[in-house]
């Protein structure tokens, strides 16, 4: 029976809750008797069933749950609460569970009747019934619920009176619902509405879009935030994902570590507490150091800038002195210094850096020392001395036997020279003495050998004697030069210095000697005899020769430029200059404040009569006869003929008179040639070889008509082309029509896009746009690109923004971009423009 009931929520729920016993069976079971709890349960259920159909339906599963031992206390409580409420409200009380089914049947009937009478769907009643208990505690019993019933419930709440009034009004009117419009009409109306809506939406875009289209430049520059964050920002967003990361994270965030860190930090902070005075002191100290450093630096800079050689020399000396003082005090430093020196010497020996091996020195020597200026010579000398010094030291270090030489750094070379000479002399004397013992056994005892030996000895003796003489000579000379040198060196601080200003023969002598010592020094540790010979040779011819040579040289080369100017010698013919001629000076001196200086000049020029060639010549047209004088004469004579006019010869007159005719005809011919070259004349048609040539047909017929026509067309074309030429009307001018291919790259191949007329285009480029031609205010505007955008800036789609219509239209549009869409986009912006892409 119950199953047969349509549209009830109950059965569905029942089914959901699984199989259950029919009521009859349950009744029997109840009769058989069950546990007290159960019984009470059942009774409750039946109670509930008696109260309301709706509640009953809910109750079933509760009962079942009880059976299965899955009874939920909370659910039951709710249920009971519900049933209490319904019990109080229910207008149809039901005492017993047995009546439940009958009651349901009655209800069915009631609903059906209601359905029949009102014609309303039964759900309405069902729902009403269901809703009634929970929402609207209605006072009266039966009958359909009217709106008034519902209204009573909200009586006294705000808006109640309004609703009531409207209800009353409605009740007064008779309601007639109009038939709906046909679909076509409705659609049309819909469309209209949509159009109106969308029109407003679109027209608001018109203005910004137009503005952007017309703008000369669009800016997309304001948004420079490219979304790249700082490292800290990126790090803050970091979340550990992998296992390792997680463990590390755990470790780092563990409370122990955190606390430790905190404590440590606190400790650090504690330590940071420093006394104010300490800080001040430290600052002062630092400032002092800094200023000292700065001063030192400045000083070093200044010293470095000083170019004076003497200054540097002095400085070096001072330093050396200071160093030596140090050495005395400190043996360690002395040792170091010695090591350094040794190293230096070794280096010098390896590189021979100071021995005229450098490019510079070679070049200077090649050009000749005498040509050089004072500084260069001094430098060379210094270098040589340095070399000598270094090498000598080295020797001394090697064999301590020659203690004499190692004794003094600043030992005079002349002294050593004398020593060398003396020693040589001694040796020779010794040799001479030794020679007297002759071996008198063996081969040497033979008579012819003896003779030969004797002869040889004599020769040797002679030679030795001569050498001795030489030694004496050179020693004497050395003494002399020593004297002179001492005179010099009084003010040259004891060192050798060669000043070109004192370019006397003595000086040259000195130089010579320097070279000598140079030689002797370098070969000193080699065989003394060999050295002797060498020295002898140089002394023999070196000194006098060098002196003579240098004397000569001096005569020629040490003449100053002024001397040349004063004593022009045989080359004076070219010596006409503004300075030499003195005219320049006089002109300059005459340029006083007096007004008539020009007069004076002219007077003076009158005094100097110009040289005018007496015999005038024709204009020098011969390119080959181009000797200077002739050219000059030619130049002067052309004008001369004009000045002192002479009657030209008859032939000349005729030539001049008829010169023009020739020229014009020639020009015309030339022009025709050029024209023919640029627009060649068409070929004249001629008889064609081929068919009919051997007969008279072609001759009779003449040329084919197409040929003649073609020729005529070509002729006409040529004439037209000639007429089109710029020089067609100018008889005396040929303007080349030749198209220069190299120029073509500077011309536009065809009209650039937006332009449609050549004139407009050419007028638009007539003005230069560079900074040389325009003031600064318009240069940037003239050269701005259509879109100004920073690389990397993302151009966002256009956004609508309310525009102030009264703003200045001239201002260049500045498009403002935002990273995130602004919440109140309608807020006016300073430039008041919209941001979007250019279309």
């Amino acid at each position: 029976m119950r199953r047969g009931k349509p549209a009830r929520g109950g059965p569905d729920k029942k089914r959901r809750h699984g199989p259950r016993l029919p009521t009859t069976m349950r009744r029997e079971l109840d009769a058989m008797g069950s546990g007290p709890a159960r019984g009470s349960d059942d009774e409750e259920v039946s109670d509930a069933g008696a109260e309301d159909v709706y509640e009953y339906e809910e109750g079933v599963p509760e009962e079942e749950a009880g059976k299965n031992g899955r009874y939920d206390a909370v659910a039951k409580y709710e249920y009971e609460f519900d049933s209490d409420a319904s019990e109080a409200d229910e207008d149809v009380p039901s005492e017993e569970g047995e009546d439940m089914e009958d009651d349901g049947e009655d209800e069915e009937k009631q609903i059906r009747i209601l359905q029949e009478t009102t014609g309303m769907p039964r759900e309405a009643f069902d729902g009403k019934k269901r809703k009634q208990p929970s929402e609207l505690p209605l006072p009266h019993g039966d009958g359909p619920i009217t709106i008034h019933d519902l209204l009573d419930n909200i009586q006294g709440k705000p808006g109640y009176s309004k609703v009531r009034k409207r209800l009353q009004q409605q009740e007064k009117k008779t309601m007639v619902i109009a038939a709906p419009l046909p679909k076509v009409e409705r659609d049309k109306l819909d469309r209209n509405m949509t159009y109106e809506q969308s029109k407003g939406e679109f027209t608001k875009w018109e203005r910004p879009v137009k503005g952007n289209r017309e703008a000369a430049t669009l800016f997309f520059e304001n948004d420079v935030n490219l979304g790249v964050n700082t490292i800290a920002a990126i790090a803050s967003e970091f979340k550990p994902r992998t296992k390792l990361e997680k463990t590390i994270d755990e470790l780092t965030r563990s409370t122990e570590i955190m606390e430790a860190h905190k404590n440590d930090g606190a400790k650090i902070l504690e330590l940071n507490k420093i006394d104010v005075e300490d800080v001040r002191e430290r600052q002062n100290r630092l400032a002092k150091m800094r200023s000292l450093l700065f001063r030192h630096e400045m000083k070093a800079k200044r010293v470095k800038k000083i170019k004076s050689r003497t200054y540097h020399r002095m400085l070096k000396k001072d330093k050396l002195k200071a160093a030596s003082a140090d050495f005395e005090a400190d043996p360690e430093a002395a040792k170091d210094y010695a090591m350094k020196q040794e190293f230096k010497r070794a280096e010098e020996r390896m590189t021979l850096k100071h021995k005229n091996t450098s490019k510079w020195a070679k070049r200077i020597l090649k050009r000749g020392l005498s040509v050089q200026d004072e500084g260069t010579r001094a430098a060379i000398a210094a270098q040589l001395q340095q070399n000598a010094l270094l090498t000598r030291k080295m020797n001394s270090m090697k064999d301590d036997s020659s203690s004499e030489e190692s004794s003094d750094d600043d030992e005079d070379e002349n002294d050593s020279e004398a020593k060398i000479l003396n020693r040589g002399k001694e040796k020779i004397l010794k040799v001479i003495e030794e020679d007297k013992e002759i071996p008198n056994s063996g081969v040497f005892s033979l008579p012819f050998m003896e003779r030969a030996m004797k002869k040889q000895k004599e020769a040797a003796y002679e030679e030795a004697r001569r050498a001795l003489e030489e030694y004496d000579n050179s020693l004497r000379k050395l003494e002399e030069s020593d004297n002179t040198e001492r005179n010099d060196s009084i003010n040259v601080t004891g060192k050798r210095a060669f000043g070109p200003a004192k370019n006397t023969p003595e000086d040259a002598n000195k130089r010579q000697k320097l070279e000598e010592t140079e030689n002797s020094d370098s070969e000193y540790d080699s065989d003394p005899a060999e050295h002797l010979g060498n020295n002898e040779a140089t002394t023999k011819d070196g000194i006098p020769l060098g002196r003579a040579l240098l004397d000569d040289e001096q005569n020629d080369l040490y003449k100053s430029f002024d001397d040349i100017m004063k004593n022009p010698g045989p080359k004076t013919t070219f010596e006409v200059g503004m300075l030499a001629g003195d005219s320049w000076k006089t002109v300059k001196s005459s340029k006083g404040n007096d007004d008539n200086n020009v007069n004076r000049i002219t007077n003076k020029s009158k005094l100097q009569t110009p040289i005018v060639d007496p015999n005038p010549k024709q204009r020098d047209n011969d390119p080959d006869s181009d000797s200077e004088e002739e050219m000059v004469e030619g130049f002067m004579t052309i004008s001369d003929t004009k000045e002192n006019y002479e009657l030209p010869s008859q032939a000349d007159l005729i030539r001049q008179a008829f010169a023009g005719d020739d020229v014009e005809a020639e020009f015309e011919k030339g022009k025709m040639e050029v024209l023919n070259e640029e627009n060649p004349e068409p070929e004249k048609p001629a008889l064609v070889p081929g068919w009919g040539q051997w007969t008279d047909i072609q001759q009779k017929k003449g040329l084919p008509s197409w040929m003649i026509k073609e020729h005529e067309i070509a002729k006409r074309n040529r004439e037209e082309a000639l007429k089109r030429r710029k020089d067609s009307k100018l008889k005396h001018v040929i303007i080349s029509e030749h198209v220069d291919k190299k120029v073509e790259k500077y011309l536009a191949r065809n009209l650039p896009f937006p332009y449609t007329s050549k004139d407009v285009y050419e007028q638009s480029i007539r003005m230069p746009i560079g900074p040389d031609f325009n003031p600064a205010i318009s240069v940037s505007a003239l050269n701005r690109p259509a879109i100004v955008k920073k690389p990397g800036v993302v151009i966002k789609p256009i956004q609508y923004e309310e525009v102030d219509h009264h703003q200045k239209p001239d201002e260049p549009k500045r498009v403002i971009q935002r990273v995130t869409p602004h919440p109140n986009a309608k807020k006016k912006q300073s430039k008041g423009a919209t941001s979007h892409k250019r279309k």
Partner: protein
Amino acid sequence: MAPARVDAQKDAENELEMKVAKYSRGKGADLKALRDKKLKGQLAVKEKLFGQSAKAAAKAEQWLMPCEEGFLEPDDLEKTYRFPQESIMKEVDLLSSRKPFDMILPVLGPYTIEYTSNGRYMLVGGRKGHLAMMDMLNMDLIKEFQVRETVRDVAFLHNEQLYAVAQKKYPYIYNRHGTEIHCLKEHGKVLKLQFLTKQFLLASINSFGQLHYQDVSTGEMIANYRTGLGRTDVMRVNSYNAVIGLGHAGGKVTMWKPTSVKPLVTMLCHHGPVTAVAFDRGGHLMATAGVDRKIKIWDLRKYEVVKSYTARAQSLDFSQKGLLACSNGSQVEIYRDFGGHDYRLYMKHRMMKGYQVGKVLFRPYEDILGIGHSMGLSSILVPGSGEPNFDTFVDNPMETTKQKREKEVHALLDKLPPDTIMLNPNLIATVRAPKKKEKKTKKENEEEMEEAIEAAKNTARKKKTKGRSKPSKRAKKKEEDVFRAKRPFLEQSEGDGRPDKKQRVGEEVELPKALQRFAKKPQS
């Protein structure tokens, strides 16, 4: 009082307007006739900017360039050409009165002179080998030396640091200190030298009538043309367009540029040999003198004679302000434009009798005419010849060393290539004239081919019997027709002789290392 002020204001406005017109360089396009709205808008903006800058320039000129050239002003019945130098000297200020001088250098023969473009330095070349450079501002001799051979001409290069001298056999380049820098042997025996400042070209004409152009910044010989018109030493550069004018013995004047073998313009100017040529600063006026005792002034836009005088001249020169100096024997005449190219005698100066004037040259930015003659040099005052306001961006007579260096670098950076020399330099960037016969482009060729194929396909065929109109036969015939129509075009396109573009790209373009792995591998 008030009306006078109004008048003055109006005058000032008119003047400003004129200047604005000058600086706006002609009229803008007629925007109303334009149909393209977008272009119209763009052009309107542009024109507005042009107007702005023209106005700014005019105002700047008004305030920054207030000096005007002064001329000799005669009382009635007085003639300006009767004023001797002495009387002019009395009137001028102290500074100007120190500028004229006479220098008598009788031995080393006729002198030629040359000024730097800023007018500060003068180079003097004596025929017999005397060279000297002077600083004209403080009358200082910078360097003087003798080359001991014929010197035919001298020319400054871009500044006074370098100059070229045409000597007996070759031209040489010397520096300021008289050190020989180069010997330009390729030029041969040069008679005349000219320097094109903006292009850094040294142009020379040698005794065989050969015209040489050499780039002095790179040393490259740009051009070497035979004029074919004989020996001449009449050469002048038109400073407006850097075209070189040569005067020839046949009365012709030819104009040359370095990229054309033939002269751009050949004019028959005189019935006898041409003795001198000069160009106005604006580039539209040319003065020529011939042995036929004529001095002619030409309008170079129309190639017509504007004015012709019966006089002789060995040397001509236009000043910056348009005065024309002619030398004749020992006399120098100066003509002035009295409006509408009406050149009338303005000044006259006689040298000592027997002096032969070789070259007259106005000194830039000064009212001074330099004269090189057979007995030395002179310079005279010519009021109103020089530009009174100098633009330091163009030429600065008071240049400091730093500015000079800066300018040199800028000039080198702004050096124009030699191809830009043309008769009308405004032609650059304009649309080129359509060619008479142009080769068809590939696209056009293809289009034509397609048309031909269509035509071949659509030809109607006769209905033929005996199986000759079978569908297969018709298809075959059609195919043949199409092929026949195609063939000439295919041959044309093959004639290009260029391999396929794709292939070339594949062969030539080498990808960067990082992208090489994405390249198509050659199939093995």
